[in-house]
């Protein structure tokens, strides 16, 4: 096995569960998220010579996984795929307050939150995955945290 393939295997072993959990917010089910992650790593392995150390390997695979997930998504969405993800908690009834607060966030910011807290993505990885600067990600997450906190306080939730 070549070095890149080995690197992909290490990434898979380390991040499979978090990728699947983050992706499930996009696909709407763990099963479809699992299939998308499997497909993404398979495509990444087959096309590994195309990866040229531009951004992190995790972000590169995530982008493939995200695209696969949207191609096979449960909820119909229009083109372009990248702009129409509407991620949601898989089981909102388990934390209705958090679910409601998340719904108030714009979809893109919600996705960043899911990448951070389900996917364990670093700021750099989110930056590479979303194609925006780390500063923008940091600002977006800071804003999201404040919005979530505000929404989860009694006063904020009542608004």
């Amino acid at each position, binding site marked *: 096995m070549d070095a890149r393939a080995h690197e992909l295997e290490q990434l898979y072993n380390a991040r*499979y569960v978090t990728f699947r959990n983050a992706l499930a917010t996009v696909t709407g089910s763990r099963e479809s998220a699992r299939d998308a992650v499997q497909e993404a790593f398979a495509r990444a*392995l087959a096309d590994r010579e195309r990866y040229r150390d531009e951004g992190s390997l995790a972000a590169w695979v995530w982008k493939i996984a995200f695209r696969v997930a949207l191609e096979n998504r449960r909820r119909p969405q229009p*083109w372009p795929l990248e702009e129409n993800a509407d991620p949601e908690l898989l089981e909102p009834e388990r934390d209705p307050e958090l679910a409601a607060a998340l719904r108030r966030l714009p979809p893109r910011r919600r996705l960043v939150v899911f990448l951070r807290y389900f996917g364990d993505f670093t700021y750099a990885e989110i930056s590479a995955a979303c194609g925006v600067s780390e500063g923008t990600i940091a600002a977006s997450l800071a804003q999201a945290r404040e919005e979530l906190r505000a929404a989860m306080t009694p006063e904020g939730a009542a608004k």
Partner: protein
Amino acid sequence: MIDGLETELRERFAPLADPTDDSNWAAVRARSSEHARHRQRPRPKLLLAAALVLGVLLVSPAVGLRGKVVRLFDHAPAAPERIRKGFGLLSGGALTGEARKVAHAAAGQGITATLWLTPTKGGGFCSAWGLDVPNTPPDSAGVGCYDRAMATTYPVGVTTELHGVSEDGTTLKGPVLLEGVVDLRVQSLELRFSDGDSAAIPFVWVPAPIATGFFLYAVPPRHWRKGHLPTTLLARDAEGHEVGHREIRGVSFPGS
């Protein structure tokens, strides 16, 4: 304060995450081997030479309407086994037995791009652009399945395929390909560049059961440099009115 919020959110999210590890690397490798057989990429040096404006050429009876060319799905040649198998690997419910070769585009240097389509059980379709380079195994790139709703909710969609940035950071590595789809409203496409240039993008319309238009455009090398990149794709109806436009994302440089 941020640390406190971070901790609180992590504690809220943690119990919602499924810890089950159902990973299977062996299955990934097996699936990857299948992909590799069907999707081997042409050599970059040859593809550099392929970065010419592609003109859509039809492979059987068609009617031309400005940049739009109508291609009857039922009259198109059947797809070969490797393409049908490729569609079968997707999870979109492809009716692989109905896969057809719908169009091809000459890219120079003996390279051709071919569009393969097949309907799906759910009323959508799966598509694949294949790049055939002399003396290399056939390639199927840009494979995906789409449901019917996608083809009717937005007039034009576009994706980009890049191959990195040159060492000096001022020029994209070729080829720079734009591929995409249009719906029934669209009769012409215009690509605009940051230097004021524009180009008409031909596309092929495939009626029912596909009911979608397709384009593949290789951005000319003179537009791989900063200040000359593609910026916007405009879609117009038969009267020339704009019915949609897409900003060309992804054709950019890090930090720009």
